[in-house]
């Protein structure tokens, strides 16, 4: 057994040993607050067992291992529906960026370890009402204030802000230069005076995203994590960090096996639906598509193991998997007919077709919309030109509103 196989076996065994306390059955019927409390205990158990911060440096409480060990653990963890969703953003983006760019290292270390233990949560304050895809068009501003800064404006779609202790934020510090050049990156205390968090209820019924208002929020210059005007580059490093996360060819919806089972149970025109050509074609097409994504993901892992950088085709997973999950979920509801009306708002999108369907649009928009991902593929991978951008090179305060 290789070291990696041994690692994976240990991860498998540990995850299985956690099912009784933290698995789907244990979470059933809990309020969000109760589930979050359970999640904090789960995160602590992960930390104690050496599965938190797997690819982070040991001096920050991590395990000092590689991306491949992290992804292997995540693939095991994903099978069980543990309450880890509250820490996904926190540990995925803001905390690694803090670790890389935070100036007060003692403070950074304390925050990182508490975040790894699930004691503190960080959010990422990027999108605004005026634009999410067009990040550099943001309007929240920070003005010099004594030795520090004063923030005014509004962020939106901020995941888990209502439970967050801290956040990282990109704001405009200079409106007189072109939009990418006037941004600066800071961290903020979410409990500071002037910060107001208001949850937004989404179509599926849950409220994990928020509006966040900043009214004369004062921060010291030691909160700054980029050069003044250099915030966009730090925001972009997030994309590199995200490259090494476990992917799911089911688009974080139900596995195709569940669809096949449904098609065997349901009858169409008096015959099992699995014998119906329309259903068979969809099963075959979805299987081929998911198998392709699985092979791409596997190849990326093998490349990482061999010390190589995975190819850009890994960026296809979210685009292809989530939108096809949306259609397959519609089809599953079609198969159930009027039997599909019964709806449980708290069911998991991983194993409930209605939940998967109603929440799928969020997946196609958050973290890069389908259209943005297609642009990225076209421009970064294939070398096609950028769209026409009338605001290019124009000082931000002269762009027509």
């Amino acid at each position, binding site marked *: 057994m290789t070291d990696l196989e041994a690692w994976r076996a240990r991860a498998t065994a540990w995850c299985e040993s956690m099912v009784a306390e933290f698995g789907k059955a244990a979470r059933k019927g809990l309020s969000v607050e109760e589930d979050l409390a359970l999640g904090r205990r789960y995160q602590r158990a992960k930390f104690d067992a050496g599965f938190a911060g797997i690819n982070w440096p040991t001096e920050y409480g991590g395990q000092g291992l590689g991306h491949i060990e992290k992804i292997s653990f995540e693939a095991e963890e994903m099978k069980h529906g543990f309450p880890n969703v509250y820490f996904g953003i926190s540990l995925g983006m803001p905390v690694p960026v803090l670790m890389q760019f935070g100036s007060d290292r003692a403070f950074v270390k304390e925050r990182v370890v508490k975040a790894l233990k699930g004691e503190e949560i960080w959010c990422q304050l990027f999108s605004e009402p005026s634009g999410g895809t067009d990040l550099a068009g943001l309007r929240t501003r920070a003005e010099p204030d004594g030795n520090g800064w004063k923030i005014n404006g509004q962020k939106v779609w901020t995941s888990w802000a209502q439970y967050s202790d801290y956040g990282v934020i990109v704001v405009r510090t200079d409106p007189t230069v072109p939009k990418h050049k006037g941004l600066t990156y800071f961290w903020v205390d979410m409990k500071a005076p002037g910060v107001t968090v208001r949850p937004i209820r989404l179509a599926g019924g849950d409220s994990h995203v928020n509006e966040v208002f900043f009214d004369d929020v004062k921060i010291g210059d030691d909160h700054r994590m980029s050069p003044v005007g250099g915030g966009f580059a730090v925001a972009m490093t997030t994309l590199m960090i995200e490259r090494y996360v476990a992917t799911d060819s089911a688009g974080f919806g139900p596995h195709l096996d569940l669809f096949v089972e449904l098609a065997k149970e349901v009858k169409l025109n008096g015959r099992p639906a699995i014998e119906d050509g329309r259903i*068979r074609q969809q099963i*075959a*097409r979805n*299987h*081929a598509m998911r*198998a*392709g994504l699985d092979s791409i993901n596997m190849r990326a892992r093998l490349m990482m193991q061999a010390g190589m950088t995975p190819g850009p085709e890994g960026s296809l997973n979210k685009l*292809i998997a989530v939108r096809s999950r949306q259609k397959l979920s519609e089809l599953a509801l079609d198969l159930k007919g009027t039997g599909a009306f019964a709806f449980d708002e708290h069911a998991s999108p991983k194993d409930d077709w209605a939940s998967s369907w109603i929440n799928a649009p969020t997946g196609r928009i958050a973290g890069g919309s389908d259209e943005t991902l297609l*642009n990225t593929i076209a421009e970064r991978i294939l070398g096609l030109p950028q769209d026409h951008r009338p605001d290019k090179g124009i000082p931000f305060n002269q762009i027509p509103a």
Partner: protein
Amino acid sequence: MSILYDEGQQAIATESRRALEARVSKDDLLPLLDARGQYHAGFWTMAKEQGWTALALPEAFGGLALGLVELGLIAHQAGRTLSGAPFLTSSFGAAKAIELYGSEDQKARWLPGLASGQTIGAIAFASGPDALPAKPSVTWRAGQVTGTVPGVSGGLFADVAIILAQDGGTPALLVVDLAGVERRAVDSFDNSRCIADLLFADASAEALVTADAAFAAALHILALQAVVTAHEQTGGAEALMEIARDYAVTRKAFGQPIGAFQSIKHRIAELYGLVELARANAIHAAAREGKDDFITAAAAARLSATEAYDTAARDCVQIHGGIGVTWEIGLHLHMRRARTLALEQGSSFFWEDVLVDRLAGVSA
């Protein structure tokens, strides 16, 4: 388990690409469309010289004892250049049938010639929409076959064919010497495939597999060929994606490259997705040869590759506008080849059924 190509495999890809790009051009291929019964002789000569015909066959019979992964690499490059002869796949399929199911005598008789390329093989299972007919139209009695197999790729020049026949309802997989067998050339939209109806009239045939096992054996041969073809289709789709990209970067309209319009750039980005899925599935399937899930992997590879190549052919022409539909630019060569390869080795309907039967646990 997927694989990463090793250095030797990467060298095969590089070398075959170099050779094919130097020696196969659109100018050679266009005239073949107007001629019935001609294939790209230069390609076939090269396939023999480079040892591509011998690649995946055993050393004992003059082969190089490499496998589906390596042959797939060649097929991918052949697909990129629309390389002209269908025998790379059909001779391989025929040779594998004899290697896997034939007697020592049969192997000694046919494999050395198939490995050197002196002998050309064909696979003749399909009848119209049936890739593997449950009741083959050819009858086999007392060592002789009678009946017609329509639309056999490479059939016009094949020396030996592997066919499905029946003896009073009992199926059999047979090897038939085609010397003296009548062939009726089919004028097709992709004439260099050298498609012919094979008309058997008391032709001598020898059994490879009899009874129901004949179907499983035939499916296995079809799956091996499908994986080679999936690589070829992926290569074609990849080339079209690049052609579309290059055109979109240079062609201007309304004062900018047309590739700056999202309707164009997104179309090409979608092609990238289809090509990468097809590539991943093809490589995976090639690496699964000999494993329990080989047929499933081959079916997935076949479905993604067909979708990728057909879509790329459609969209690449569309992106070119008027110039795309001219004879001279030759994009129709890819349109034709995409459809031909979609029909050879079983249509998408066939592979969808094969796949779903396995996913649903209907068949082993």
